[in-house]
């Protein structure tokens, strides 16, 4: 594909240089000359022969992509580019993940300390961690939405049944990928979420098989060094490789059959995705490439902005197998499983129902024999899809602590004001807004500090609320004693006394300490512009 050179004649040196540069350009773009490139930018039609197709034949990355699409499938509202976005997020996670790996060793002694070191000492370390975390959660969401879109457009119908099936496998791999990463920070959140998750495997019948699966996943009866290593290897090696493998199978099928056209574009039962009339072709180079490129750039911009200004990956206390946190929760995408566990036993909720759901999901193309992909013809499919979605949301809600879990009222009250993990009101208002003294909820609030007054007011109201809600929590009153235990360290003792329904006096006490330097940044957000102000607060103010 070199430039046509006329009969040898002496060329000025700069022309020779230009044509040499052009040669390099053609070499790098696998077949596009600078002239053709300029034509592309101007939006000119390709010439004949169409040199814009050569890269698709010559370049590895482009040979995977079709050289042109049917105009109707390039509309944003057809695919919402969700498949592309899933692929991109995987790449995004790979890059941020490899960067994180530099500072991480998967042992219980080091994992958590490494996290702290990443936050304390590594420039952009926190940003990388936040990006990786948000990308992971987003990927789960986007892959699910991509499935919803292909379901609603009926794109799983023949000949794309197998595409769908590999898609379901990709969804499962994505979930496990995200879940296996959950353990790696080795904090309480991670440890207990994964403990709950793996304990479901135990329910696989017969008992000894469940035990073996559990043992294989955890590396020991309980998660410890071995379990962490296994999850790490799953997360950085095995699952990504598996995902790449199935992605290529999936995408090969997508290109082979072409992206399904919007149903109105073709007759019912027909599949004309691969027969694109010449006047409706949109070439990958340059139109679709530019479209995809700008779209991904925009998504990256949004993710970055959200991460910088709003999203902070949490890091709780170091994993402590001896201490179960007050409310343990699975990651949000497994809330539905936790919800199921509350209404059914482990065997049903952990094994049978999810297993049946998975098989049904894979079998959808074979169960739905309706040949039409048009919305009007698929009311049943659409409605059952929506019902399933709503059910999932309800189950997920039931999985949160909001539903049917309740600790002892006194514990719930303190947990709201100053939780064991997370931030809570007291840590939010912070060291300097918690004056020394003894505060009794039966006495009027007397404090000059408005923030602290709000906290005490909340204390009073929480006690009242729980008195109403809980029958064995009568005439409660609380005492908050704040003492200065050390320089820069305040000791908050929460005491609650109440009368049980048996008429006896009951007492609850919880001690917490608050250091001036503690920043609890999850709550404040990174507050980019405010950071120096916090430094001042930590130092003296």
């Amino acid at each position: 594909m070199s430039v046509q050179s006329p009969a040898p004649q002496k060329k000025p040196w700069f022309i020779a240089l230009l044509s040499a540069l052009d040669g390099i350009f053609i070499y790098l773009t696998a077949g596009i000359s600078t002239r053709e490139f300029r034509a592309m930018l101007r939006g000119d039609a390709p010439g004949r022969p169409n040199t814009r197709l050569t890269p698709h034949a010559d370049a590895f990355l482009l040979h995977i992509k079709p050289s042109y699409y049917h105009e109707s499938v390039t509309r944003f509202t057809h695919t919402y580019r969700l498949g592309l976005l899933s692929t991109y997020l995987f790449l995004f996670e790979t890059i941020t993940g490899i960067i994180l790996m530099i500072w991480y060793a998967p042992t219980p002694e080091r994992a958590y300390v490494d996290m702290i070191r990443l936050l304390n000492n590594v420039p952009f370390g926190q940003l990388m961690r936040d990006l990786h975390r948000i990308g992971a959660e987003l990927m789960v969401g986007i892959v699910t939405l991509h499935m919803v879109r292909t379901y609603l457009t009926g794109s799983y119908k023949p000949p794309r049944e197998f595409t769908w099936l590999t898609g379901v496998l990709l969804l499962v791999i994505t979930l496990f990928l995200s879940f296996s990463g959950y353990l790696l920070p080795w904090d309480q959140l991670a440890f207990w979420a994964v403990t709950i998750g793996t304990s479901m495997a135990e329910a696989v019948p017969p008992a000894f098989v469940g035990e073996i699966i559990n043992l294989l996943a955890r590396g020991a009866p309980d998660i410890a060094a071995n379990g962490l290593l296994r999850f790490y290897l799953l997360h950085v090696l095995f699952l990504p490789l598996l995902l790449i493998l199935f992605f290529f199978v999936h995408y090969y099928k997508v290109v082979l059959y072409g992206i399904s056209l919007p149903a109105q574009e073709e007759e019912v039962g027909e599949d004309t995705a691969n027969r694109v009339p010449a006047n409706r072709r949109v070439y990958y180079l340059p139109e679709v490439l530019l479209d995809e490129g700008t779209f991904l750039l925009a998504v990256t911009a949004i993710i970055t902005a959200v991460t910088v200004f709003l999203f902070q990956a949490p890091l709780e206390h170091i994993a402590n197998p001896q201490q179960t946190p007050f409310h343990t929760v699975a990651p949000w995408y497994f809330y539905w499983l936790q919800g199921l566990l509350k209404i059914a036993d482990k065997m049903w909720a952990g094994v049978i129902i999810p297993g049946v759901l998975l098989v049904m999901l894979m079998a959808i193309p074979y169960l739905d024999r309706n040949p039409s992909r048009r919305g009007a013809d698929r009311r049943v499919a659409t409605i059952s899809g929506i019902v399933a979605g709503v059910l999932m949301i309800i189950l997920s809600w039931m999985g949160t602590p909001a539903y049917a879990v309740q600790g002892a009222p006194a514990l719930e009250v303190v947990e709201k004001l100053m939780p064991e993990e997370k931030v809570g009101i007291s840590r939010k208002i912070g060291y300097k807004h918690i004056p020394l003294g003894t505060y009794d909820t039966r006495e009027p609030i007397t404090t000059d500090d408005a923030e602290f007054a709000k906290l005490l007011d909340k204390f009073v109201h929480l006690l009242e609320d729980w008195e109403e809600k809980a029958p064995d929590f009568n005439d409660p009153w609380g005492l908050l004693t704040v003492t200065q235990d050390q320089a820069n360290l305040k000791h908050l003792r929460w005491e609650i006394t109440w009368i049980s329904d048996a008429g006896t006096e009951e007492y609850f006490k919880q001690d917490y300490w608050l250091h001036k330097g503690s920043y609890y940044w999850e709550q404040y957000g990174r507050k980019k512009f405010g950071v120096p102000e916090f430094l001042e607060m930590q130092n003296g103010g």
Partner: protein
Amino acid sequence: MRSLYVRSFGSKLIWGLVSSFVIVVCVGLTAQTEDTRMEVQTKNWEGRGIENGAVLFANNCATCHGQQGQGLQGVAPALNSRYFFTRRLGDVGQDGVMTLSNYVYLTVAAGRPSKDNSQWANRMVPWSSQFGGPLRGDQVVDVVAYVMNFEETALQQTASEDPFQPFLDVSKPPEFQNIGISADAEWTPVQLAVTSVLPMGDRDPDYLFGALACSGCHDLNEPQAPSSMGESGPNFGTIHELGTYRPEAAADPAAYLKESIMSPDAFRVEGYDDAMPDDFASRMTEEEIDRLVQWLLDPNRVTHTRDAGGNIIDE
């Protein structure tokens, strides 16, 4: 071509440029505040480490070293002490050899294996799981951070405010020469020996009272009255009249005392917290406890002087 759904090159260019700009601005802002952010985070995690350490100290160390680190005579030395932060390292010959925080770390992690210094009722046990103790490595680090954080208040103490309890393994520091606490005059440490020298089951009550460090918290001579409350635990000077001032014990003082020793949490004397160790039932036989109770209730009880092995030497 134009009839197809293809947005103009110009609009894509603008999209792309705006997005790139946003990314650059976000990363730029982050870069600008990275130094401060790392500083804030470092302080944050130091602070949280101390918070964790405070919980661990309250749960594991306060019974011996006192909640404020003030120490207990005959039980454990003060840590919230000017002496500790200024002279201790030199007195044990480690000045310039290691830092105080390493000294604390080693003591806490590995304990004090030797019982040479018999002024304390119990050994300081190893705390790190590495040496068979109950705390993980990170917990040892946190509790050490908490102990080291006493420094600021400790350095403000004058010699007479220092809750320092003289160590018998080092000479008396000069600044304590002329104040109340004196290593040779008023300070008469309980002379104790390895607790296992006398076989379990045969030990005399007065020996047990010292060997198990009851004496660290309970004074045998001072009366217990509102005006004279023992600081670490109730005084036992008037314990033979217990029934008159402790209504709960009126019916059967001996049974009450036995329960107090075997399960201290069963009844909490007002004005005290849960400092009393709750493992005595496993460290004494029941007969020993019964004899200890009888001894405590006896107004004419005798306390022998004993040698390092627990043998009586005053007869």
